[in-house]
């Protein structure tokens, strides 16, 4: 027995375990190996932890954009002009599709037959897509396609049907040029808009108010962070931010007046076998556009619901240019409707007075060239009001020659000619005000004394009756006649009455913006306005239309038959009529344009009379919200 403290050893021969060298070596190897693994683990989980955790998140957490509803466009009284109608699209998550090539192509073939998208196109789109993202394929599905695909969805892994909104225009043809349409964003637009959060497959306003008020209508997209598993199935949603719908835009347009204007213009064009025309009705007190019609129009719903190649080609190759908004982008010579500018310049520059009598011969000669009046006989002496009323060209040749081209151009610009005063849509054209400086700058010949570059007296006198190189647009004309109506104030035209955000809070109310005051004394302008009143009270033709329609001829008007396409005697013409009413305190001003119109008195003026018939009968209703 061996003494060991308080214990005695009873038995057992081996006092120590046999830790051989080789077992110790094993132990050392084990310690080294496990330590090495621990160090590597620490490096992965601590040093690289954050970046690898981010990768793990990127694997499974995907941000999906929730499209904001686009703002609705209403007329000035709150009548909706457009709606967001539901549509269905096929979406696919490539990663969730079958793994084998055979099963995959079988699925693509089935989806192709159900959706009508060619199988090759489908396969290519899927091959190029983000494997975990949702890819929208093909056009919107028809209701039948939607139903038949929905039934088969359980047997089509990776496929789903997504509901989204399609812009539907309620008055697609009549309001086509005002509202425009939305379409898929193109590469050029995306470059400019990407930093504002636009997605590559987003819809964006292309023309009209849809484009001009894009920033208001679009709203702010929301998003959701969703967790998907390795098969692409959504497991849960982490966080979401709700989208903010776009603002509601209340246009200054009065829908019923717009329809009446369109009806009057359509009827007028049909009666005279004309193909194209435009009309702009404005409130001369505020600059608000009450109606804007350009014919022919086109069906904007074709663009938002997926236009066929044939329809698109028909629209782009139509000789009547239905895609051209003549109201803002059609530039034409104003013809005799310009004579109020010449009269104002002559009066205000002291070249004539309201009482000055000038002759009205059948022609006058300037610089060896003969310039005719519309009548081939002498109409005798007359004052400026009468000259406006009977539209004597030779009278205004004399006034223009006395005023001079540079001064006349100054007055034209003061009335808003030649300036693209912006309206809430792209593509507004400025028109053109010519003078000797313009001619020298644009003649394109180095020798400024050549015929091409030298401004002649002939240029001045034809400028005085709205010809020469002078160009304007129906919108421009409406702004101009409104200025004559309201006492010489050129107002900023606008299509927006007010804008409300999605909750109905008013965020913008139209405020009248004065662009310019025409430098004219009240008495001089009164003489001009008197001429316009006399014009519509001429016993034959013009006054006949008012009487026939039962509309009081209380206001001022001016016809114009403008030659175009060069110079000479038998050139094609456009017919114009500008009008305001009532005479004492005008609350409406308008321009009527008939492309290739030959007789403005019988082609353009009756259209204005028809519009006025509606306007007079509904003045209170139109004013209601204004």
């Amino acid at each position, binding site marked *: 027995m061996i003494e060991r403290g308080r214990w005695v050893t009873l038995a057992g021969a081996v006092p120590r375990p046999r830790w051989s060298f080789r077992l110790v070596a094993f132990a050392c190897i084990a310690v080294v190996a496990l330590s090495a693994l621990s160090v590597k683990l620490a490096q992965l989980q601590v040093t690289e932890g954050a970046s*690898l955790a981010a990768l793990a998140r990127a694997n499974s957490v995907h941000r999906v954009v929730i499209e904001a509803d686009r703002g609705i466009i209403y007329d000035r009284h709150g009548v909706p002009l457009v709606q967001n109608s539901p549509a269905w699209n096929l979406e696919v998550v490539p990663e969730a599709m079958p793994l084998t090539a055979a099963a995959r192509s079988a699925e693509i073939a089935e989806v192709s037959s159900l959706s009508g998208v060619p199988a090759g196109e489908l396969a290519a789109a899927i091959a190029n897509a983000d494997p975990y993202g949702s890819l929208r394929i093909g056009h919107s599905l028809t209701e039948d396609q939607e139903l038949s695909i929905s039934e088969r969805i359980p047997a089509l892994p990776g496929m789903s049907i997504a509901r989204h909104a399609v812009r539907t225009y309620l008055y697609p043809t009549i309001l086509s040029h005002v509202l425009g349409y939305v379409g898929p964003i193109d590469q050029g637009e995306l470059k400019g808009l990407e930093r504002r959060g636009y997605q590559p497959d987003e819809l964006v306003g292309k023309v009209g108010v849809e484009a001009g008020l894009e920033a208001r209508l679009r709203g702010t997209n929301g998003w959701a962070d969703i967790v998907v598993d390795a098969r692409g199935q959504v497991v849960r949603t982490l966080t979401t931010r709700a989208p903010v719908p776009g603002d509601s835009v209340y246009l200054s347009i009065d829908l019923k007046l717009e329809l009446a204007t369109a009806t009057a213009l359509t009827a007028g064009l049909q009666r005279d076998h004309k193909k194209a025309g435009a009309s702009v009705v404005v409130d001369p007190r505020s600059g608000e556009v009450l109606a804007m019609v350009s014919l022919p129009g086109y069906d904007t719903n074709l663009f938002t619901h997926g236009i066929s190649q044939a329809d698109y080609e028909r629209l782009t190759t139509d000789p009547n240019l239905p895609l051209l908004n003549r109201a803002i982008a059609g530039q034409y010579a104003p013809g005799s409707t310009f004579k109020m500018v010449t009269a104002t310049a002559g009066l205000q520059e002291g070249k004539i007075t309201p009482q000055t009598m000038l002759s009205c011969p059948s022609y006058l000669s300037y610089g060896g060239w003969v310039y005719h009046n519309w009548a081939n006989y002498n109409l005798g002496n007359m004052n400026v009001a009468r000259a406006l009323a009977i539209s004597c060209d030779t009278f205004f040749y004399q006034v223009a020659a006395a005023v001079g081209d540079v001064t006349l151009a100054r007055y034209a610009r003061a009335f808003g000619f030649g300036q693209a005063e912006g309206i809430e849509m792209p593509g507004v054209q400025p028109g053109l005000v010519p003078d000797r400086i313009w001619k020298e700058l644009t003649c394109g010949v180095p020798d400024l004394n050549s015929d091409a570059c030298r401004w002649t007296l002939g240029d001045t006198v034809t400028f005085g009756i709205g010809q020469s190189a002078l160009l304007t647009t129906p919108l421009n004309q409406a702004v101009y006649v409104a200025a004559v109506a309201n006492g010489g104030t050129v107002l900023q035209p606008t299509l927006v009455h007010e804008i409300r955000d999605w909750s109905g809070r008013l965020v913008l109310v139209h405020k009248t913006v004065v662009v310019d005051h025409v430098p004219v004394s009240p008495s001089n302008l009164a003489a001009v306005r008197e001429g316009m009143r006399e014009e519509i009270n001429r016993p034959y033709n013009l006054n006949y239309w008012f009487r026939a329609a039962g509309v009081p001829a209380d206001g001022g008007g001016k016809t114009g038959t403008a030659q175009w396409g060069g110079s000479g005697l038998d050139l094609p013409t456009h017919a114009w009529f500008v009008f305001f009413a009532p005479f004492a305190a005008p609350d409406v001003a308008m321009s009527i344009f008939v492309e290739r119109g030959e007789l403005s008195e019988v082609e353009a003026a009756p259209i204005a009379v028809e519009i006025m018939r509606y306007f007079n009968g509904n003045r209170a209703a139109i004013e209601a919200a204004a």
Partner: protein
Amino acid sequence: MTSIPVWRRLDVIQPTAAGLLAVLGVMTIYSANADWARQVAWITVGAAAYALAATFDYRRLLPLAPALYGGMVFLLVAVHLVGRTALGSRRWLSVGGFPLEPSELSKLLLVVTLAAFLRRGLSLSWRRFALALGLAAPPAALILTQPDLGTTIVFAAILLGMLFLGGARPAQLASLAIGALVVIPALPYLLHGYQRRRLEIFLNPSSDPLGAGYNLLQARIAVGAGGYFGQGWLHGLQGQLGFVPERATDFVFAIFAEQFGLLGSLLLLAIFGTLLVRLLKAAAVAPDRFGELIAGGVFVMLFVQVVENVGMNIGVLPIAGIPLPLISYGGSATITTLAALGLAQSVVVRRRVVVHQRQAGYPEVFDPSAVRLTF
């Protein structure tokens, strides 16, 4: 002295560590949406095997060694003849409706056979060295041709480790090293297509991020996403959502690490370390050479699997289909591991014990409560 009860001779730490690992394993398998109930059943069977092996006197295995070797070869041949094929590899025998993976069982059988062969003498003659290699070669070849690279690697490691423990001379080990230097450059030509691909991907994982390198990358991402304290049980994005492949078997460590973080991973390695040290201790206290070699062999068998499995999960070793003992889902591997630990326990229980008794007592009256045992 002979009446000291078995439970007082038991190494308690070893089964405790194994039990902890099994619990963590079931938790991880549950989080991987795998059949955790079945794994519990395998563990129960394994626990029975453990108890059986621990009570069974390992020394009675000695005369059975040739029969065990024959049985091992028989099973491996049977796999080649009637085995089930899955994922391009013929590995499973159906025994009474349950899939049995003989290559897993053969790891332990190799340990026992080699221990029986190497037990004599403290050093190894060249003839016996060659015989030992010859003994291991046929089963290794049968496993490699299944093909099962992972188990073959474990086989090679067991052979190497047991030769070392069995007294192999430095020259003999050096000759093995030279042999390895000859074989490894030839490896790409000997390996099957998918095995070669795995090796290439290990060397350059980003070469194919969505294809075969995907596994490696996703496992690394999962481990890294664990951070210090892990995402929490059942909250690992990578594991829960299925981005980690083979998440209940080969890559179970990755999803464990994602859920339990560096803290949990180090704890897991610490438990494995404890288990391994207990196995070495079992070898040290073994009453004879056979027991020492069995315990040492079981140590090598587990050590290699832990290091290779964790190593491939964190991207420091090439991918080979080796399970993480007691954690990975799998019946054959779990039962084999528990049986091997039971065998080591059998060695511990039969160690020579130094018996101390409190001085105050009378030697004639044996009082177990006044007895202390030391190694």
